[in-house]
């Protein structure tokens, strides 16, 4: 409705006592740049303490955390899958092959239909960045991270996080995410949950009920 658009814009101009004004974008940019940001942007912890905090926060959300090294990553993934008796597991497209255990057969994401997602035992992805202070994993849904539905419909999500991907603060994460600002982004903080009934936290409503995080040092 083009007339509603014009009417709303006009009402805004008169409400803010500005006429239609060609310099508005430039002045807005100038004023915006002048907004003070005195909050903490950069973290203060060293690498070890940061990782420790991240794992601590994940535990708070009832996520299951395993630490490993790059060399033992495939074996660790195999162990986690076995531990939970997972057989039908979907690997996100673009996941580095050397990361996956050879003796385990994965279904490729591109070959998996909705039914497969609905019935499988779990999925494996990597992430773009992780935030220690909030225990958050961020997927920008690039290679190895899967389309959004991949980490949504199945009951179990195994996510591989490398130590260098972990930042301490939310602003640091946004700095790293800037190049992906127009990708679809999913911030995941623990398994899906609700507290709508008597404020009792229940894990796993519609998203995965279980989140396994493999941290690679």
């Amino acid at each position: 409705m083009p007339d509603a658009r014009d009417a709303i814009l006009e009402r805004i101009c008169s409400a803010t006592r500005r006429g239609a004004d060609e310099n508005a974008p430039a002045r807005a940019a100038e004023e915006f740049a002048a907004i003070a940001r005195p909050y903490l942007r950069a973290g203060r912890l060293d690498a070890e303490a940061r990782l420790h905090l991240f794992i601590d926060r994940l535990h708070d959300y009832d996520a299951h955390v395993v630490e490993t090294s790059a060399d033992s990553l495939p074996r660790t993934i195999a162990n986690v899958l076995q531990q939970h008796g997972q057989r039908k597991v979907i690997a996100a497209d673009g996941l580095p092959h050397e990361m996956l255990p050879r003796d385990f057969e994965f279904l490729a994401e591109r070959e998996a239909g909705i039914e497969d997602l609905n019935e499988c035992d779990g999925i494996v992805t990597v992430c773009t960045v992780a935030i220690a202070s909030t225990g958050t994993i961020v997927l920008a849904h690039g290679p190895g991270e899967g389309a959004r539905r991949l980490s949504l419909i199945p009951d179990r999500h195994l996510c591989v996080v490398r130590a260098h991907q972990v930042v301490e603060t939310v602003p640091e994460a946004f700095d790293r995410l800037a190049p992906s600002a127009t990708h679809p982004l999913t911030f995941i903080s623990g398994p899906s949950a609700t507290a709508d009934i008597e404020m009792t936290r229940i894990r796993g409503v519609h998203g995965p009920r279980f989140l396994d995080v493999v941290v690679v040092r």
Partner: protein
Amino acid sequence: MTIRVAESAQAPSFQKAALPLLEDAQLRRNVRHATDVIQLKRAQVVAETVDWQELRTTASDTKAHTLRYLDHYLLQFEKACTAAGGQVHWAADADDANRIVADLVRGYGGNEVIKIKTMTSDETGLNEALEHEGIRAHETDLAELIIQLGRDRPSHIVAPALHKNRSQVREIFRETMHLPDLGDRPEDLTAAARRYLREKFLRVKVGICGANFLVAETGSVCIVESEGNGRMCLTMPEVLISLAGIEKVIPSFQDLEVFLQLLPRSATGERMNPYNSLWTGVHANDGPKHFHVVLLDNGRTSVLADAEARQTLHCIRCAACLNACPVYRQTSGLAYGSSYSGPIGAIVTPQLLNMEHGQSLPYASSLCGACYEVCPVKIDIPEVLIHLRGRVVREQKSALDAEALAMKMAAAIFASRRRFEAAQRLGRLAQGPLVRKGWFGNLPGLLGNWTRVRDLRALPPQTFREWWKQRAKNAERSGHA
């Protein structure tokens, strides 16, 4: 243009609506329990955030700035969203918005939609409007589902069913989902909702959501949620429609680093809620093929025009002010006659309605200031309440009845906070003969209407605000302000 906010034009006054609620002991227990739990969790995660006040300040500055250039940022959003394959629509009022959404749904051949909890669609009465057009709307947020199946009204803006306890929820699900053996553990109830909705997530072609934030710079939309029902609605359908108030826009992607720290801590007392989703227009091979945003005015531009009340539009709908409000905690949100309740409801509903309805709402407060203390975007709700009380009385001055006259006198007093405080002090000196053991009984004359609702606590020797000021002064003196 006809501005409508839920059913508020037909709603009884706050004071009238509150009466039966105050007698519902179960409801008051449920509300008190829920708000106590959230407040405690909030206090913990706010206390550990050393830069909380700095985050609040930047958020408030960012919102104030955005509102000054609202037209510019909306146009920027429209351009970026359109370039990314989205379509932007503008709705002057609730009916406009509902019609646009219904036309879109029908245009895509749909007669069913799945919905993420959106206060904005409660505001416009979207579900009823869709039903009128033969389109069935399924709420997918657990609390909204409880409300929808129980044919109830939302009592809270974040947890709309917090006035219901587990056995009440079980009764609703038993009957409407045909599950006679359903247990009443929250686990059982949640599992029942999961089964009930999963089939709909995989089948229904159109999703409807609101927006927590619209990013002008990138044209992205951000949704904050817990259950994953949001992610389902955002990614599974072929068509996605977002209904968003024009005040939801923020300038840049980076601004989210501030708001995404404030919102979850304030709303649910979590460091971060389980899921935040951001998307920009349409993404190839991932999610809906068609994306529409409906930008809604419905009275927001008249709020913008009132310089003293404009800060109302900073609100990010976290509900911290509800949980902290001593009045809300007694009555629940059901007394506010609108989908917006508590202190924010008391200021936003009458303003959207241009003070033509909901005039009792600015009086639904003791002006204790707790709402301002907890507001993550620093809206000075008591100040706005006092300002609106003044407007109510001024705009009723044509009505020459005694009540209006009394209200007018009140308006002169409420017009400035300092004068209001002076009046409170004066009141303390003058109330002597009316007080019985610290409580006012039935007051004579005009004020009697009000004390019939409940005993009015006699003005304490020190008001909350005086105490607060004194406390700050003392702290300063002892060196740790």
